[in-house]
């Protein structure tokens, strides 16, 4: 296996791209959660709470996918001494 800095750096940026795809799904859910929690919704209180439960469940599922990606990204960053450079 090739653990050269260039390979680790390439892996770091590939994982970052994976993270960004998941973030693209997570961010709208987080924004909706903010609105629901803040009462900034036209839904009834009961409907808002039901929707909030569903949104929270979706957020947890996506975070479960994100966790191993983030852990591996951190390992790459540490191996590179923080010098991850620009994406290619």
């Amino acid at each position, binding site marked *: 296996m090739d653990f050269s800095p260039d390979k680790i750096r390439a892996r770091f940026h590939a994982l*970052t791209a994976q993270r960004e795809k998941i*973030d693209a799904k997570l961010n709208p859910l*987080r924004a909706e*959660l*903010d609105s629901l*929690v*803040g009462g900034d919704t036209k839904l009834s209180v009961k409907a808002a709470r039901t929707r909030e439960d569903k949104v*929270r469940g979706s*957020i*947890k599922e996506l*975070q*479960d996918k*994100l*966790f191993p990606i*983030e*852990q591996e*990204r*951190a390992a790459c*960053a*540490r191996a*590179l001494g*923080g*010098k*991850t*450079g*620009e994406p290619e």
Partner: protein
Amino acid sequence: MAAFSKLNGFVELLAEKSFNLGSDTLTVALSNTAPGSETTPPTGATSACKLSNVTQISYTNLSSRVLTISSSAQTGGLYSLIIADLILTATGAVGPFRYIYIFDDTATNDELIGYYDYGSSISLASGETFTLDFDNVNGLLQLQ
């Protein structure tokens, strides 16, 4: 990893339903001002334990500061909040910062949980990362 200082107001806020640590958007805020030196120190009254009382740096060249929650669960009555390591990547100059707060971006007033003091100011150049290395066994915090 620097030691985590839980803010006193957090415990009352937690008891009064300000947080859902399992699925709220937990985020880090960076500051170069000592907590006790803030105009309204967030280390003081519970009502002061919020993001608006933190002097933050500019995040223009910094990647996402949102934390990834791995587990929010209890075992035998001991609750642990496990969070993935966070990699902050700079695409230009960032900082300086010395204090990293964790706050709840979903909570009504962006209430604070606690902070890390890294002992001296840190700056990042373009292409550099700063990794928050959380304890993946005992978690960010435990409650019993």
